[in-house]
């Protein structure tokens, strides 16, 4: 335990540590190299021990094991983490910009009277402070922020750090909750899985993904035709699903699916970080957008600055001609 340590708030998805956790471990390892501290992973749960071994890229793994932590509860997570962070006194705490991190990190920072930044993409030590680069405005703006004071709570965007799954000599310490936990005002009842029956977009080689730039439900048909011509399926950004134009099973991104097709053709999608999270690993990304500064062009291999409604038909024809 040292004031130079970097603490990682680990998360699990159903049966394994979440991808973001390995990225945070990678980021923490780099930062600990600069501060001269250790990487400490903290995992909350009721069967955390079974995931601890996977986190051995850390130097120490703290597992807080309590039946009240079996499912996510904002109050319980904040209470436990507040106690652990106070006791450990690290230089920085890396938390993911996730459904859990969003509920926990700002409150934790306020309770600890610690500085917090959201959208962290990179971090370095600069004198007494940390220099944190944050992404905001849907990925259109970057800010370099000096964070003075410890512990700095860094809400980290997925995809920011190279994941570290390196096996270390981590020592696992399992403890009961350091604070008494009772069911609070917010209680978990059950997980609801997506409706089965729709195609699994994670298994497709070709996805034609539509965003708000499609403008009207009636225009989806032409995108569908393009998808069929390519032997693929339709996927979508969140607003299309929120509109009820396509089912949630088609949503790509933070709260949707993580897809890695051979071709991801993004039509009228701005490329917000929450969307990129779900598709940046695709083999070939082609983006069509009327806005040349759309962040989707940062992740796409090929870009077209054009009205998608003008391009789709000629594209169907060009593909049919090639198939000949």
């Amino acid at each position, binding site marked *: 335990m040292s004031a130079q340590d970097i603490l990682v708030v680990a998360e699990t*998805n159903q049966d394994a540590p979440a991808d973001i956790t390995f990225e945070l471990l990678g980021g923490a390892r780099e930062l600990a190299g600069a501060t001269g501290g250790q990487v400490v992973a903290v995992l909350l749960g009721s069967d955390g021990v079974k995931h601890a071994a996977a986190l051995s890229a850390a130097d120490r793994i703290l597992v807080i094991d309590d039946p009240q932590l079996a*499912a*996510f509860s*904002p109050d319980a997570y904040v209470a436990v983490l507040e106690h652990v962070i106070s006791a450990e006194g690290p230089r920085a705490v890396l938390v993911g910009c996730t*459904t859990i991190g*969003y*509920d926990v990190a*700002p*409150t934790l920072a*306020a*309770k600890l009277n*610690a*500085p917090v*930044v*959201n959208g962290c993409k990179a971090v370095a030590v600069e004198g007494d402070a940390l*220099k944190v680069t*944050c992404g*905001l*405005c*849907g990925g*259109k*703006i*970057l*800010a*370099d922020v*000096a964070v*003075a*004071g410890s512990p*700095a709570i860094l809400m980290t965007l997925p995809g920011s750090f190279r994941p570290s799954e390196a096996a270390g000599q981590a020592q696992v310490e399992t403890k009961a909750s350091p604070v008494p936990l009772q069911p*609070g005002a*917010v*209680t*978990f*009842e059950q*997980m609801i*899985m997506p409706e089965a029956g729709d195609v699994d977009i994670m298994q497709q080689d070709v996805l034609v993904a539509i965003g708000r730039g499609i403008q009207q439900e009636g225009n989806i048909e032409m995108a569908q035709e393009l998808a069929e011509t*390519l032997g693929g399926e339709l996927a979508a950004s*969140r607003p299309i699903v*929120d509109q*009820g134009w396509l089912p949630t*099973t088609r949503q790509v991104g933070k*709260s949707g*699916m993580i897809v890695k097709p*051979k*071709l991801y053709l993004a039509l009228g999608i*701005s490329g917000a970080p929450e969307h990129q999270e779900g598709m940046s690993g695709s083999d*070939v*990304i*082609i983006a069509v957008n009327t806005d040349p500064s759309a962040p989707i062009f*940062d992740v796409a*291999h*090929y*870009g*077209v600055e*054009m009205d998608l409604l003008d*391009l789709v038909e*000629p*594209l169907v024809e060009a*593909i049919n001609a*090639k198939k000949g």
Partner: protein
Amino acid sequence: MNIVVVVRQVPDLIEPLEIAESGTSLDFDEVSFLVNETDDHALEQALLLKEAGGGTVTVVALDCGEVDDTLYTAAAKGADKIVKIPVEDELRPPAPPAAAALFAEAVKGLQADLVLVGSSAHDELEGMLAPLLALKLQLPYVGVIRGVRAGDGSVTAFKEFPGAVMAKMNVKLPAVLGILAADQPPRYVPVSRIKAATKSTEFEEVEVAAAAAPGVTVQRMYHPAAGERAEMLEGSEEEVAAKIAEILVEKGILK
């Protein structure tokens, strides 16, 4: 049920975003504002709950970022009362901790059973408003919610997890919920109704004092470098279409 909805204005991302001369913030003189999308969903969720079970909807906003049109729109959609909080700088929205302090003071007096606020906003750098507001109000909080059902002294809220998975959560009232999406997309109101609301709606004003956040200083704000960007395909629609088809053949995607 008395529902309070917290509404903020954010920079419109469709318009070009300029950096101020200081180099440490957006040039707010040039920014065009619109309602934060998740706050708009929070309002929709409040109206749906009111329609299903009765009650009132009070909208609270800071008087900055050209908020009036948003508030008239909220009135036209069915908000019962609108409260506006004067702020020092009418152009530049305060950071989340300061905004939370301002909103909390105003919301305290409203006897809310349920406070709905957008789960996040794209300009939140120093933490996030929704959970900080709950902390200031000393109310329970859960965010990233897609859909709410009213119950007896509690609500059921559906919290998003990756992979289109939802957690069904029971939340005892009073509480604050961070809304990501309402059960239905925000309703459309005709311009004529907004115009009528502009004439008939009176804003209540509540003056409160603000507070600062510790330890965070923006040194530089900038646009991402145009480094590893996409190779842009130029030409007419037909030419671009032919180029794409060629690439697909080259990459073995089209056989």
